[in-house]
Structures are given as C-alpha cells and as structure tokens.
C-alpha cells in the first residue's frame, strides 16, 4: 500500500483541483452576500491594486486595516469558501513565520511581523477573488486590462483542457491503481500515463484547430467584455477606495 502512495497523492491532487474548478464553475456562483454580483473587472482590478499596496506598504497599521477588511469579507463567505480561503492564508502565514524565525532570532522582528501578515492578506485577497468569481469572468475581465486576445484565448483553452485532460489522467491513475498489485515499476507506469496525456493533448489540439478552421477562423480571436456599473459595484469601489485612501494617509 505504501508503494502506491504516489498514485494516491496524484489522485488526490487531481481530484481536488477538478472539484475546485467545478465548484467555481457552478451556476450558483457568484454566491453569498459577499459577492453581490460585482463586475469581475472591478474585482480583478481592485484585488490587484490591493495586493500591490500591501506589498508596497511599510506600515503595519495599513496592513492590519487591509487584513481586517479581508477578514470581514471572509467572514461572510459561504462556509466551504470560508474554510478554503482561511486555511490557505493561514498556511502561508505559518510557513512564512517558520521561514522568518531564524531572521527574527537575529533581531529582525520587523520581517517576522510584516511579511507573514502581508502574506496572509495577499493570499486571502487572491483566494477571495478566485472563489467568488467564475474563472471565465476572471479571464474575460483581463480583456479590459489590454491583455492581448491571444493570451486570453490561451488561458480559456487551457482551463477547459485542464478539466478534460485532468479527467483523463484521473481515470488512468485509477486504472493503474487497480492493476498494480505487486508494486514496482511505479515511475515507468506513471510516465506512461503522463506520456499518453501528452499525446492525447497533441491530438486534441489538432482537432480543435480543424474545428476552428471549419467555422471560418481567421486567426483573430475576439473576446468581449463590457464595463457596467451597478449599486453593488459602486459600494465595492467605495470600500476599496477607502482602503487606498488609508494607504496614502498612513504613509
């Protein structure tokens, strides 16, 4: 059984990833009062801005203010997202504390307080964005940041095929687990799985290319995004603007 640990780990990580994508893509998103249908463009823009300000800040009070704001959002997330975001952020917080402990022993307490708090805040901000927004919307919002259509297309396709190839890999890992009685040959059979996924992906890429040609693809992919403003958007912008004002005030 120990010999199969790597298969189990592979299955677990694939499974976790797929279920996360599915949860994120469910029609129920955006859900919860924390994400009152705010335009993804604003969410992406302000999350990015907040992360930049947190990174720039040298003021612990500002970092704590941002942290309080993020914690408040976390507090109102649906419980599955709450746990996921909180645990991801706490994990980074403690890893940073551990990493910085030697520096703290030599007297550098600033890093020990500042960096883990910043870590917690940035990881929380990124996770809040990712669990309250559909990935299509996040990618679509990038369009408004003048990201070229090619990259948007690459990200879109990649997400779709992560699901398809991920399901294929998962099935192959299950099949491998069922067939492996004696153990041994782990790496060789695993590379068979990965190699097959590679070949399959090459095949799918070719077929998708053909399908696009048949539908008159001219080499330019246009993605569309609209910028609108609702009351929820305005409230979100005001909340974020006050955090930004605080940054400059405290500097």
């Amino acid at each position, binding site marked *: 059984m120990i*010999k199969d640990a*790597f*298969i189990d780990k592979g299955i677990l*990580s694939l499974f976790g*990833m797929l279920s*996360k994508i599915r949860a*994120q893509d469910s029609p129920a998103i955006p859900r919860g009062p924390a994400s009152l249908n705010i335009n993804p463009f604003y969410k992406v823009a302000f999350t*990015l801005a907040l*992360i*930049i300000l947190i*990174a720039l800040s*040298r003021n*612990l*009070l500002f970092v*704590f*203010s941002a*942290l*309080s*704001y993020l*914690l408040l959002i*976390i*507090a109102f997330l649906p419980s599955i997202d709450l*746990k996921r975001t*909180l645990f991801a952020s706490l994990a980074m917080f403690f890893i940073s504390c551990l990493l910085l402990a030697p*520096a703290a022993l030599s*007297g550098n307490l*600033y*890093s020990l307080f500042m*960096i883990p708090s910043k*870590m917690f805040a*940035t*990881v929380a901000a*990124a996770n809040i*964005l990712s669990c309250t927004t559909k990935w299509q919307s*996040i990618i679509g919002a990038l369009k408004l940041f003048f990201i070229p259509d090619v990259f948007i*297309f*690459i*990200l879109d*396709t*990649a*997400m779709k*095929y*992560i699901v398809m190839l991920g399901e294929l*890999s998962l099935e192959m890992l299950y099949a491998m687990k069922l067939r492996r009685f004696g153990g041994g040959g782990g*790496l060789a059979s*695993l*590379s*068979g799985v*990965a*190699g*097959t*996924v*590679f*070949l399959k*992906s090459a095949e799918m890429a070719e077929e*998708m*290319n053909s399908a*696009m040609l048949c539908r008159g693809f001219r080499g330019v992919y246009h993605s569309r995004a609209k910028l609108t403003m609702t009351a929820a958007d305005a409230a979100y912008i005001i909340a974020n603007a006050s955090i930004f004002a605080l940054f400059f*005030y*405290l500097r």
Partner: protein
Amino acid sequence: MHIPDNYLSPATCALLGAAAAPVLAISVKKVKEEVSTESMPMLGIGAAFSFLMMMFNVPLPGGTTGHAVGGTLIAIMAGPYSACLAVSAALAIQALLFGDGGILSLGANIFNMAFVLPFAGYFVFSAIKKALGSKKGEAIGAVCGAYIGLAAAALLTAIEFGIQPLIFKDASGLPLYCPYPLSVSIPAMMAPHLLAACVVESAFTVFIYSFVKKVSPGSIYAGEKKRSKAIYALLSVLIILVPLGLLAEGTAWGEWGADEISVTAYSGSVLGFTPKGMLNGFSFPSPLPDYAPSGMPDALGYIISAVFGVAVSIILFRLLGGFLKAKSPGSHA
C-alpha cells in the same frame, strides 16, 4: 519554487515582469511561425498539459513523493518557445484562478520557470544530443537538460531572494522583503533542489520522453529548421541586464524612500517602534490595543480594531458552528 508575493520587492517583480514580456512576445511569434499557421489551440492545450504535470506525484526513495515542473520535458517534446508559453499560462492560471503563487511575483516566476528553465534545459539537451548523436545521447541529454534546467531556475530564484536584503532596506538598515542574504538563500534553495527536486525532474523527463518517443515518434518536436540564436542572445543580455537593472532600481528606490517618507512619517508608523513595542502592542486577536500613532485620530484605530475583532469572531463562530454541525449526526447515532 513558486515565489509568493511579499518576498520580492514590487520593484524586483516589475523588473522581472518587464524582462519576461518580450520573451513571451517572441515566443508567440516563434510558435506561430514554427508549428503551423494557426497553432493557437496547441498553446492553450500545452498549458493545460504543463499545469497537470505539476499534479503528478512521482515516487521518491524512502516512501516520499515529489512533483516535477516539466519545463524541460515540454521544451524537448514541443519546442522551447511552446514550453515557455505553456508554462507561463499554467503559472498565470495558478496565480489568478487558484490563488496559488504570487500575483505580483508572476513575472518573476515566469522569468525563472517559464523562460530560464525550459531554454536552459533545451540548450543542454540539444548540445548533448548533438555531441553524442546516438539514442543514448538523447536520453543522457534529457536527464542532464532537465537537471540543469531546474537547477538554473532554482539558482536564479535563490539569487532573487538573496539580493533583496542588499538592495531594499529601510532607513535604519532593516530589510523590507526577504531578509536572508545570498550566503543563506543560495544554500537553502540549492541543497533540496540539487538533491531531490532535480532528480525527480530528470527521471520524470527521461521516462516520459522515452515513452512518447516509443509510442509516437512523429509527435516530438524536430527542432528549428533555421537555428535561431536570437533567444539565447536575449537570454544572456537579460542575465547581464537584470542584476544591473535591479541595482539601479534599488538605489532609486532607496532614494525615494529616504526623501519621500520622512523620519516623522516613520515615527508614526511601525518602523518607529522598538521590537519590544511590537511584541507588547500586537497580540492576537485584538492587535491594536493602545495604539494611537501620531497624526492619526484614535477613532480610526478603534474602527479598524473593531472591524478586525468582529470579523475574527464571526469566522470563529462560523467555524465552530460548522464543526458542531458536522459532529451532530454522529452524536445522534
């Protein structure tokens, strides 16, 4: 290997991001020329493959497991430019859609893992393949390429960490970001990479490469028809320019810091605190008890403390509620 946010200064992130941008642009152009006229699906699907590679756990001696990056592998199988784009897109997806890895440090991560790793790996692979020629040469090339590619990326990461305390310091000389100098960061990064991660990477690379080669030899990247040295020239220029740029950025940053943020502003912020004050002043979960910095109304501090306290209590309450709910069916039974 993924650099999280806040360990590198925003200036370093911006600089490495700026260095990665032309590389990506060249790669898009190259892939479009090389693969076929319309190769866009291939780019996205390559990214999906690269993303999944990082989910495959490989058995390590002693019952542990580790995962590979697969950058060199994709470079050997689909060409270094495709690999560059595929790994970049995979990193972007991890950062933006999964909240894994830094968002600001995405540029740095792309530079290390999507640019230096596959190109260094591919360069070593093709040099060895050319020198030895035979089938054995390819296998040896794949092993060495993967090992050196990952090692190079790890070294670069270590250097990026290590120069932070040299360049980005506050007025009192305390490091603002990663506090460890090169003498600590290089051995700390390199030891586990050279001993474990690189080994996993090379084993995985050579096994998959031989598998694909055996099953479907036609699907392996044949190499550029016209060998272009341009990207290697760019690589060397960037390797020279980036540290220079960092130094320049760093001094500019330092000046800005000294001029703009006056000592009085500092005195109101945390940097004016003595370590003792920090220890006393910030104890979880009410972090801002007696804290009223000069120039800031008390009320603001109270409001922030209140928000923090309320948020933490709600979270604790809800977590507790969740655990109780999860347990209650059991207690009924």
